């Protein structure tokens, strides 16, 4: 954490308006990212002021419910939002290059080569009309000036690396000839074909069965050690995050509510929403509980976010904030090294509630 100083200095120099004189200290640094969509019903603030850092060889798990802005964030990093119907602001620094203000041509050169994505549903994200091999070869040849036969050899090599049996034969199969787990492996092979330094996996195992999910998670873990890439793992499954991530970022209503090293996040979470998520899950590693502890209510509309803390209508401890919950947006503050949370309750109060009320019931 010694590298924190220059960043804060830069932030102070830049003042409230982020200007590009800031120098990034991490491999990937997202600062105050905002992605808004103007619609007929109003402005949808899908991501509203998100900041995080990620180093090479590390995995960041982004958790949240549907509509919390996880996927919009990942598409934003890859520059995949249509400029005509979205407004993106803030900064995304990838290895010293700023992406939000960069020319589309420049982002396109980085996309696929330096950063790649694994999508949730491999059946709909692969073209049914082309063979799996052709699709990997295409991706590889866009970024590398090689002949078709060299690219084909590379595709076979990649398919073998992700555990497809007899890759020299399967390379000529169409996506529908692959099973769900194999399609996801092929998708990973495609994403890794140019050795990207940043890999974004958006719910990579949600469509898969548990035994296949376990295989894919193992594969991602092994490949990360081999390639030393940075991984952003987007999921709603806290179990997957606990298995794979080094750090965790919990999103709610387009904002980050808690960010922490994974051990901290599970053993000493400091945000009522994180408590709620942990209480909602039936767990195999504990005695069977009598009742689950759900969060009341439903996730908010992003057009009309609740005032103050967006979580306050669903929070059981809102009454303890002396009304600040409804009026004031809580600041994301660092409470322990690397552990930040946005909540009005005092740290002591939260520790008390977690230790006395929540933890014993999990």
């Amino acid at each position, binding site marked *: 954490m010694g590298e924190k100083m220059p960043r804060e200095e830069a932030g102070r120099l830049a003042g409230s308006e982020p200007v590009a004189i800031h120098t990034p200290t991490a491999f990937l640094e997202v600062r105050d990212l905002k992605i808004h969509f103007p619609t007929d019903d109003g402005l949808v603030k899908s991501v509203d002021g998100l900041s995080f850092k990620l180093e090479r060889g590390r995995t960041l798990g982004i958790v949240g419910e549907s509509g919390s802005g996880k996927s919009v964030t990942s598409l934003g990093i890859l520059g995949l939002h249509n400029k005509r119907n979205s407004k993106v602001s803030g900064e995304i620094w990838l290895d010293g290059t700023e992406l939000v203000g960069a020319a589309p041509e420049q982002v396109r050169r980085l996309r696929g080569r330096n950063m790649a994505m694994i999508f949730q549903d491999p059946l709909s994200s692969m073209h049914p009309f082309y063979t799996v091999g052709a699709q990997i070869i295409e991706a590889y040849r866009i970024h590398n000036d090689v002949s078709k036969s060299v690219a084909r050899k590379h595709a076979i090599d990649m398919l073998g690396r992700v555990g497809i049996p007899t890759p020299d034969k399967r390379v000529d199969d169409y996506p529908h000839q692959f099973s769900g787990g194999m399609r996801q492996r092929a998708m990973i092979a495609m994403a890794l074909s140019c050795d990207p330094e940043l890999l974004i996996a958006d719910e990579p195992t949600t469509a898969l069965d548990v*035994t296949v999910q*376990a295989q894919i998670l193992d594969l991602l873990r092994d490949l990360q050690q081999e390639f030393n890439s940075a991984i952003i793992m987007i999921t709603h*499954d806290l179990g997957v995050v*606990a*298995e794979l991530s080094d750090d965790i970022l919990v999103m709610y209503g387009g904002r980050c509510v808690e960010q922490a090293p994974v051990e901290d996040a*599970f053993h000493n979470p400091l945000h009522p929403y994180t408590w709620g998520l942990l209480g*909602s899950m039936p767990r195999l590693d504990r005695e069977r509980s009598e009742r689950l502890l*759900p969060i009341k209510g439903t*996730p908010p509309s992003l057009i009309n976010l609740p005032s103050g803390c967006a979580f306050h209508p669903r929070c059981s401890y809102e009454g303890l904030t002396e009304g600040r919950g409804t009026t004031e947006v809580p600041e994301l503050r660092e409470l322990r090294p690397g552990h930040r949370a946005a909540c009005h309750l005092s740290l002591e109060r939260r520790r008390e509630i977690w230790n006395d009320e929540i933890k014993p019931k999990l």
Partner: protein
Amino acid sequence: MTSTDIAAAGQPLLEVADLRKHFPVHAGLLRRQVAAVKAVDGVTFSVNKGETLGLVGESGCGKTTTGRMIMRLLEPSSGSIRFEGQDITKLSQAKMRPLRRDIQMIFHDPYSSLNPRKTVGSIVGAPFRLQSVATENGVKKAVQELLELVGLNPEHYNRYPHEFSGGQRQRIGIARTLALKPKLIVADEPVSALDVSIQAQVVNLLEDLQNELGLTYVVIAHDLSVVRHISDRVAVMYLGRIVEIADQADIYLRPMHPYTNALLSAVPIPDPSVRKGRERIRLSGDVPSPLNPPPACHFHTRCWKAQAICKEVQPPLAELAPGHEVACHFPENLPVGASGASGGTVDVTKN
């Protein structure tokens, strides 16, 4: 009414015996049947009154097909389904209709299972009209009571499904299911389409309703932790067959079938401190196609304990511990003195 109650007291509410569903595959000019997908291939279980049976397995294991056959939405190829002692396998549509009050279903997808052009009142009220059930204070009152029962605002009577969130829609579906006070509810993946925090709400609701109304559930799900939470007994299916069936506590503490062991060890545990120390069983490959399942024990192609016998003899589902049935030649966690199906432990040394 009382006569059936007395009859039901002594026996299970639902009994399924050797149930099979084979979907024919046609090919060629004459559309001859060339093969069959054995979606469900000899499934036997029973569910007692007030109990919850969980059916778990991976996609393609036949759990949904089993549920649909219990509902008589699919015609079984063979086998029998008995409800309250009465064989309903071959009942005609007309004779089945009065029974539909007693057997209801909760569907997986709260988006496609509600008609977008009907109001909530008309959706939840439909069962009363279809079955011409008289309600004391009119259908509207009855519907509003149901909405309140499942935790929705009764004033939402005139709203349309698109005005509700996923969790609320699932509650609407549950209200419709409960309208005619069914005895048995088949719930097919009731929470898998919902967000975690909403999942917990619906799971709690299902449990409350069971306690309040004395319901019997068959819950079909792929999420082992949800099934464990909600079920009294759990049946694990693999390629159309039940490989293990036991009490909830038993099956999670002492899983005997290697497949159950593998399934349990594949579930990610939401605790980062266990990820290093945890012993994992990793299955290789995918579930084989039900069109051409491996012979004898279906699981032998992925099983690390498989021997020659597993490729030749299909292990029967045998009770190896009280209330714990397993179909395996070489089961794990055996109680002292017991042996696997067909005395497997002896065969190992011979082979």
